[in-house]
């Protein structure tokens, strides 16, 4: 396919291949995420928490990183981040089905508690915002050793109310750490809306309290997210310190498979969010720019479906952990 001039995102230099890769990652994440819900409704997966509506932000931002070199402390919605970095649908299906081979935690943790040594994805727990400090520490270590690796962490807008968020961003600013903190603002912390979380307009306003740049970006536009992250990463690599990026995103599902969002989220709001689904938006944009030819999108989706089907078969065939293995890895074993 000849790449027309318009097919290069001008502000970023991203070429058509890169944009197609972006779209492919978004679709993979969405298809996998949808499958997790099917498993949940079938009673095969006790718990699902989604990235749906966050894919554009996650993919755009993650593509600004060097996988396995930079450090990432993600949160439970960051499925698409992990896929961009190199984790696979199989990895996460093993976790969802609680199989021994789950590389995140050996199925000790609930699904969506990401971690991967090989890819420098720092294991996360459930307590929100704690990972911000771990990312600061990873950034500090890189700085102490004189490397130019950066650390990226992500959390929801509600989680910015926690003390650890404050302590981490302040620490990073004071010590000029190579940190990128991404706030994925979907407007709700379970049922609590942003207006009950903060008296500021934007989550990015929090950055002002730390003397660091706070950037608001359209989280439905992966290219804008990429650009913002790339700038922040460059800044960080040059030793110029941390950046806060707020991506305005939508939560297209209830908080998790345990939640019923009808109680607190108006249906029109959700309908509007669905009408502006980032996948639709990006597909349309890429088709308009002829980065995607007619039929490409369907093929990408079909390919993702095949990948997930295959992974699911493999995951289902994989063994559960042995009961007594629960005793292992409390301390380093010698």
């Amino acid at each position, binding site marked *: 396919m000849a790449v027309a001039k318009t097919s290069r995102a001008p502000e970023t230099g991203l070429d058509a291949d890169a944009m197609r890769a972006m779209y492919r990652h978004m679709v993979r994440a969405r298809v996998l995420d949808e499958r997790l819900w099917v498993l949940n409704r079938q009673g095969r997966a006790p718990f699902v928490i989604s990235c749906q509506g966050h894919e554009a932000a996650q993919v755009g931002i993650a593509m600004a990183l060097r996988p396995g070199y930079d450090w990432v402390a993600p949160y439970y919605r960051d499925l698409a981040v992990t896929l961009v970095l190199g984790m696979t649908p199989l990895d996460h299906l093993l976790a969802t089905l609680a199989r021994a081979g789950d590389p995140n935690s050996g199925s000790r943790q609930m699904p969506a508690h990401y971690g991967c040594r090989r890819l420098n994805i720092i294991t996360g727990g459930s307590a929100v915002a704690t990972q911000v400090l771990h990312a600061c520490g990873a950034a500090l270590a890189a700085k102490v050793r004189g490397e130019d690796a950066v650390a990226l962490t992500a959390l929801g807008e509600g989680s910015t109310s926690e*003390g650890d968020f404050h302590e981490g961003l302040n620490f990073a600013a004071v010590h000029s750490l190579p940190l990128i903190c991404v706030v994925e603002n979907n407007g709700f912390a379970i049922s*609590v809306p942003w207006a009950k*979380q903060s008296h500021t307009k934007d989550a990015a306003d929090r950055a002002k309290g730390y003397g660091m740049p706070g950037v608001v970006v359209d989280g439905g536009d992966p290219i804008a997210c990429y650009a913002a992250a790339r700038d922040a990463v460059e800044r960080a690599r040059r030793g110029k310190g941390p950046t806060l990026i707020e991506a305005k995103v939508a939560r297209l599902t209830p908080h998790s498979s345990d939640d019923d969002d009808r*109680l607190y989220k108006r249906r029109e709001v959700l309908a509007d969010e669905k009408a502006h689904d980032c996948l639709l938006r990006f597909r349309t944009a890429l088709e308009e720019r002829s980065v995607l030819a007619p039929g490409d999108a369907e093929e990408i989706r079909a390919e993702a479906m095949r990948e997930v089907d295959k992974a699911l078969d493999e995951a289902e065939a994989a063994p*559960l*952990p042995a*009961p*007594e293995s629960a005793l292992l890895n409390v301390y380093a074993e010698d």
Partner: protein
Amino acid sequence: MPVKSYIEAIREGMRDEMRRDERVIVMGEDVGVKGGVFKATDGLFTEFGEMRVIDTPLAESAIVGVAIGAAINGLRPIAEIQFQDFIMPAVDQIVSEAAKIRYRSNGDFGVPMVVRAPYGGGVHGALYHSQSMEAMFCHIPGLKVVVPSTPYDAKGLLRSAIRDPDPVLYFEHKRAYRLIKGEVPEEEFTVPLGRAATVREGDDIAIFSYGLMTRFCVEAADAIAADGFDCAVVDLRTLRPLDLEAIVGAARRCGKVLVVQEANLAVSVASEVAAIVAEECFEYLDAPVMRLGGPEIPAVPFSPPLEEFYMLNPAKIETRLRELAAY
């Protein structure tokens, strides 16, 4: 008497106290319109409005710290921590502040506050939605710690906790919420803090437990009763302060003691009960004081075989009882 679930009893305990005393407020994450992630506060927002049922920002230290200040200034806050696992960011406010305010002001200030939190495993909640972290708080003078095991106690103890002039941590077993049902009178009643309850009589082995495990202990005791062993089951109910008299009385009477808890054993409530028995009942003991609890691993893992491995059940308790009976 109407039969209620454990969580209904808790909800009604809050509701009735809020009707009775307008100083009582509820605050926490998602306690308002949503009625809490377990629905413990369902209906309170509608009945009492947003001034008394407050959705807080996502910040546990603030939930507890603000409740402390509100209690000092005359309210009776019930602070909900969404899962006991997430009480940790509030430990400083609980341990350094709430527990010490009366003492450090030589009695001038008090903190009549309840911190409610669901604890316990067996619900596929994995490491951070399954913990039993009461031990850390039971060490702390100035705190009271309550864990009910029946709907009756849940309501009665909660009402006492709300009326108590000092900070009370009130931990609810999340698996008990819908599993455990029982009779709860319509009329007003309370259950005093600091008193254990003998929920099964017996002379051969004294079993001490609390929360959901109490129920499992009764089932295990019933199972071995067929073989002629008569176990007393004492539900501790208040873990700080412990009911010394009840503990020493039952241990002396039976001469054999098993302490059962869901949490891991090291430096725990079971340790304390065993230590009390070892100190106060020496001449009455016919066997080692035994403890049964979770393994020494950081928390309950997710995968079903691992979770089952962690969790106690009546069969595991029965095995231990038979060992002790045979001693």
